[in-house]
């Protein structure tokens, strides 16, 4: 059993980490921190864990030494504090946006300030196993990509890598309210947030920089909040290069994902669920990707879906940990999702 700690355990990502790690046969959760709720039971905030644990939050300064440590929220406002906490973990998984962009200039453009700890950027390995599995086997600092970025990268990368599409792609991301975290404001009140199709990022959503960095494509991203709690879907418009056939596109996906445990290619001609549908993935670590192609016009629609808190966050972190520790990658990630739902 290795010892795991969670910094920021009371948030939504923290809750999912707890759910998965409590069910992990190789891991003991030794601490989850919360500044606000130190001393309170974790099942007070995560009621699905009632009966599974007697753990209570500890204050960050009480964090013990850990084998693996998960950071769930940005800690850049206090780089020294972060360094102190990070030193208590042999391997650190960072789920915040802090270390996702390799280039500090990109960070500046998208986050509106200088990166306070650029020295961390070089060491951080991206926690997307499908692209970085080999690096993850030895990484001591892992930065998990954003939820819509993960879906987009997994949907686009096989095509980009095989040079089947032109560079410019437009990404239309749709995301549920849990994407805003547990501390969202008045605009996320149920009466305001229900039933919305809220175009909250009309142009230039931050995740587009992550997509471009990972795939080399020129991504332009819009994001809409939809009336769901969990779930991300990205609908991407791309243009195939001249001569590209549907068979070539399928072949690229098949080559990329035939042996991946958590990516399925969903592009069917019949049935109620022909393309990736996030509702089928709630609680699961799958990212489903699919496409539709019109060879005549070379219009290509690429679709990705996942649960933002699982494959879009905590699940990617646990999968990365499994890789890092040399365990079966699927450990504690077996839940396949539900239907009907």
């Amino acid at each position, binding site marked *: 059993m290795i010892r795991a700690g969670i910094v920021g355990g009371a948030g939504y990502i923290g809750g999912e980490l707890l759910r998965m790690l409590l069910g992990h046969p190789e891991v003991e959760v030794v601490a989850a921190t919360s500044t606000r709720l130190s001393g309170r039971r974790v099942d007070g905030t995560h009621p699905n864990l009632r009966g599974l644990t007697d753990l209570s939050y500890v204050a960050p300064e009480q964090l013990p030494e850990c084998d693996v440590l998960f950071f769930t929220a940005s800690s850049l406002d206090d780089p020294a504090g972060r360094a102190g906490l990070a030193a208590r973990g042999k391997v650190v998984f960072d789920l915040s946006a802090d270390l996702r962009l390799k280039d500090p200039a990109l960070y500046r453009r998208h986050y509106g300030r200088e990166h306070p700890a650029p020295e961390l950027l070089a060491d951080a390995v991206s926690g997307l196993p499908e692209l970085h599995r080999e690096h993850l086997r030895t990484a001591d600092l892992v930065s998990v990509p954003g939820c819509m970025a993960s879906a987009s990268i997994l949907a686009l990368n096989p095509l980009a890598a095989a040079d089947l599409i032109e560079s410019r792609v437009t990404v239309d991301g749709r995301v549920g309210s849990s994407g805003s975290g547990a501390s969202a404001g008045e605009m996320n009140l149920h009466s305001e947030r229900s039933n919305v199709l809220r175009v909250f990022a009309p142009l230039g959503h931050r995740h587009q920089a992550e997509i471009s960095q990972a795939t080399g494509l020129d991504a332009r991203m819009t994001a809409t909040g939809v009336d769901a709690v969990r779930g991300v879907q990205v609908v991407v418009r791309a243009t195939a290069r001249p001569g590209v056939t549907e*068979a070539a596109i*399928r*072949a690229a996906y098949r080559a990329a994902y035939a042996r991946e445990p958590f990516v399925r290619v969903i*592009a*069917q*001609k019949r*049935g109620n669920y*022909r393309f990736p549908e996030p509702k089928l993935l709630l609680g699961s670590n799958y990212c489903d990707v699919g496409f539709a192609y019109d060879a005549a016009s070379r219009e290509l629609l690429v679709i990705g879906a996942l649960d933002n808190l699982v494959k879009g966050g905590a699940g990617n972190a646990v999968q990365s940990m499994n890789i890092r520790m040399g365990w079966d990658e699927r450990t504690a990630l077996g839940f396949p999702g539900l239907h009907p739902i």
Partner: protein
Amino acid sequence: MLKEACPECTGDVSVAPEVELNEIVECAECMAELEIVSREPLIIALAPETEEDWGE
């Protein structure tokens, strides 16, 4: 299970050895309906289109 390439998407289609002529099987990858048009050799073809409308 015998494997055959789907004529729609080229995905692997699993066909039970005891499959009958004219039986319909589905491709797991694209869910196309496929008909067994010959058993030996095994030949599968797209079943006559029963186009399902999925519009709104």
